[in-house]
C-alpha cells in the first residue's frame, strides 16, 4: 500500500503517553505524601502534652493548647452522628426494602445523591438561617445539625447499597418463618449487613470531622471549654486551624495551627484507613 503511516511515530507517542501516565500517578501520590509530610513536619513540634490538655488561649498567654477544640469537635461530630444516623439508616431501609412506589423511591434517591454533592458552605448558610437566627446565638448544636445534614445522604445511600447486597433469599426465608417485615428488616437484614452499615457511618464521620465551612456559620469558635454546646459558640478544631492560620500574623499561632492540623489529619486518616481495612476484611470473609 502506497503511503503508510509511520509505526515508529505511533509507537513513540504510545510510549510517551505511558510515561506521562506513570508520571501522573507519581505526581498524585507524591503530592499526597508532600501534604501529609508538610503537616507532620510543621505540626509535630506542637504535640506536647500541654498542647493536648490545655484549652486554647489568646495570643500572648503562655501554654495555650487545643484540648477545648478537640473536645468541641468530638461533641459536634458525635452530636451530628446522633442526629443523622437514625433517620439515615431508616431512609436507607426505605430505599432498599420498600419498592412499592418506584417514582417516590427514585426521586428520593436522586435527591440524596444530589445532596451529597452540595457545597457544604450552602448547608452552613441554611442552618444559620434555621437555627442561629431564630435562637439568637451560634451554638455547637447548630454545628452538629449542619454536619448531620452532610452525613445524612451519605449514610442513607451507603445503607441502601449495603442492604442491597444481602441476598434476597434471606428476606424470603425470614418472612417464611412468620417474622414480621419490621423484624425481618431490623434483625435479619440489617444484622447481615452490619459491617457495611458501620463502614458507611464511619466514613461519613471521617468526612465531616474535618469539615470547616459550615462551622463558620454555626458553631463558630471560642477559647472556652465546650460547655456551651447548646447555648453559644463552641470551640472546634477546623475553625481553630482557620483562625490560627489566616487571622494571625504570629509564627507561634501558625505552629499551633499546624499542630491542630496534624491532630485532625491523623484522626481523619486513621478512621478512613481503619474503616477500609475493616470493610476489606468483610469482603475477604465471604
Amino acid at each position, binding site marked *: *500500500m*502506497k*503511503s*503508510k*503511516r509511520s*509505526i515508529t511515530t*505511533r*509507537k513513540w507517542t504510545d510510549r510517551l503517553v505511558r510515561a506521562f501516565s506513570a508520571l501522573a500517578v507519581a505526581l498524585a501520590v507524591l503530592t499526597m505524601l508532600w501534604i501529609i509530610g508538610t503537616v507532620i513536619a510543621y505540626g509535630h513540634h506542637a504535640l506536647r502534652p500541654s498542647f493536648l490538655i490545655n484549652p486554647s488561649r489568646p495570643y500572648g498567654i503562655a501554654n495555650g493548647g487545643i484540648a477545648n477544640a478537640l473536645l468541641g469537635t468530638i461533641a459536634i461530630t458525635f452530636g451530628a452522628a446522633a442526629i443523622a444516623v437514625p433517620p439515615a439508616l431508616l431512609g436507607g431501609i426505605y430505599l432498599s426494602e420498600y419498592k412499592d412506589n418506584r417514582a417516590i423511591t427514585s426521586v428520593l434517591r436522586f435527591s440524596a445523591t444530589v445532596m451529597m454533592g452540595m457545597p457544604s458552605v450552602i448547608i452552613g448558610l441554611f442552618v444559620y438561617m434555621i437555627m442561629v437566627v431564630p435562637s439568637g446565638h451560634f451554638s455547637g448544636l447548630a454545628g452538629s445539625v449542619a454536619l448531620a445534614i452532610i452525613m445524612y445522604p451519605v449514610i442513607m445511600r451507603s445503607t441502601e447499597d449495603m442492604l442491597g447486597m444481602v441476598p434476597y433469599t434471606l428476606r424470603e426465608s425470614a418472612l417464611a418463618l412468620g417474622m414480621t417485615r419490621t423484624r425481618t428488616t431490623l434483625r435479619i437484614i440489617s444484622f447481615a449487613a452490619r459491617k457495611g452499615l458501620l463502614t458507611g457511618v464511619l466514613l461519613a464521620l471521617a468526612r465531616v470531622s474535618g469539615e470547616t465551612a459550615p462551622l463558620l456559620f454555626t458553631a463558630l469558635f471560642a477559647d472556652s471549654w465546650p460547655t456551651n454546646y447548646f447555648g453559644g459558640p463552641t470551640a472546634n478544631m477546623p475553625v481553630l486551624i482557620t483562625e490560627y492560620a489566616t487571622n494571625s500574623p504570629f509564627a507561634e499561632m501558625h505552629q499551633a495551627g499546624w499542630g491542630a492540623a496534624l491532630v485532625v489529619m491523623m484522626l481523619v486518616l486513621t478512621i478512613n484507613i481503619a474503616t477500609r481495612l475493616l470493610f476489606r476484611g468483610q469482603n475477604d470473609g465471604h
Partner: protein
Amino acid sequence: MATKISARNLSFFYGSHQALFDNCLDIEERRVTAVIGPSGCGKSTHLRIYNRIFELYRDQRASGELLIDGVNILDPQIDVLELRRKVGMIFQKPTPFPMSVFENIAYALKLHFKLPRKELQQRVEQALRAASLWDEVKDKLKNSGLALSGGQQQRLCIARAIAVEPEILLMDEPTSAIDPVATLKIEELMLDLKEKYTIVVVTHNMQQAARVSDNTAFFFKGHIIEDGPTARIFTNPKQKKTEEYITGRFG
C-alpha cells in the same frame, strides 16, 4: 499448495497452568482451516497466539515458534502493530467500535495509512463490498455501527479487518452469537474470501467445519490430535479420539 503459517512446538501458559502442549500445525495459504474440539480444549487459545493478542494479559505466555511466511512472529523484534494489520481477527461476538459504520472502517484505514479523503471513501466502499455488506448499509453509513443487526455487525467487523489489506483472517467462533440465516451469509462470505486470504476459523459446530473448511485440525486437552484435509478427517479419521468426537460421542 504453499504453507502460510507453521506452528512449531507451540506451548501456552496461563500463569503456571499449561494450556497448550507442543502444538505443531501447518496452515495452507488461501484455504480455510477449521480448528475444532470440545470447549476448553485450547483451540481459541491457539488462535490467539497468531496475532499475539494474548500479550495484553500480564500472566499469559507462549513458547515455541510460530512462523508466518517463514518468519517467527513470536520473536520480540517483530512489530506487533504491523503483525496485527497483516493478521486480522474476528471475535465470538461482533465488536463494532462506538462510531458510525463508515468510521468503523475508515478508523482502521487511517490507523495504518495516510489516504486522501476520496481514496478513503473508495476503500471503505471496497471493504464493505468485499464483506457483501455494501448494499445493506450504503444508505446508513453515518449511522452508528451498533445500530446494525448482529449478522451485519459481524460482517462490518470482517470488512474492517480486510480494509487494511491483511493476509490472514483469524475467526474465533464468528457465528456463535448470530442467527442461522446470518450465519449462512458469513459462511458464504468465507468461501469468497479464501480467494485472497488465508482463513483460520475456530468453531464448535462440526457441520460448519465440514461446510466451509478445506483442512481441519482437531484439538483435545491442549494437544493437536489430528489434522489434515477436512474430507478425510470427517470420513476417515486416523485417531480414535477424533472419531469419537466427530461421531458425537463426547464434546
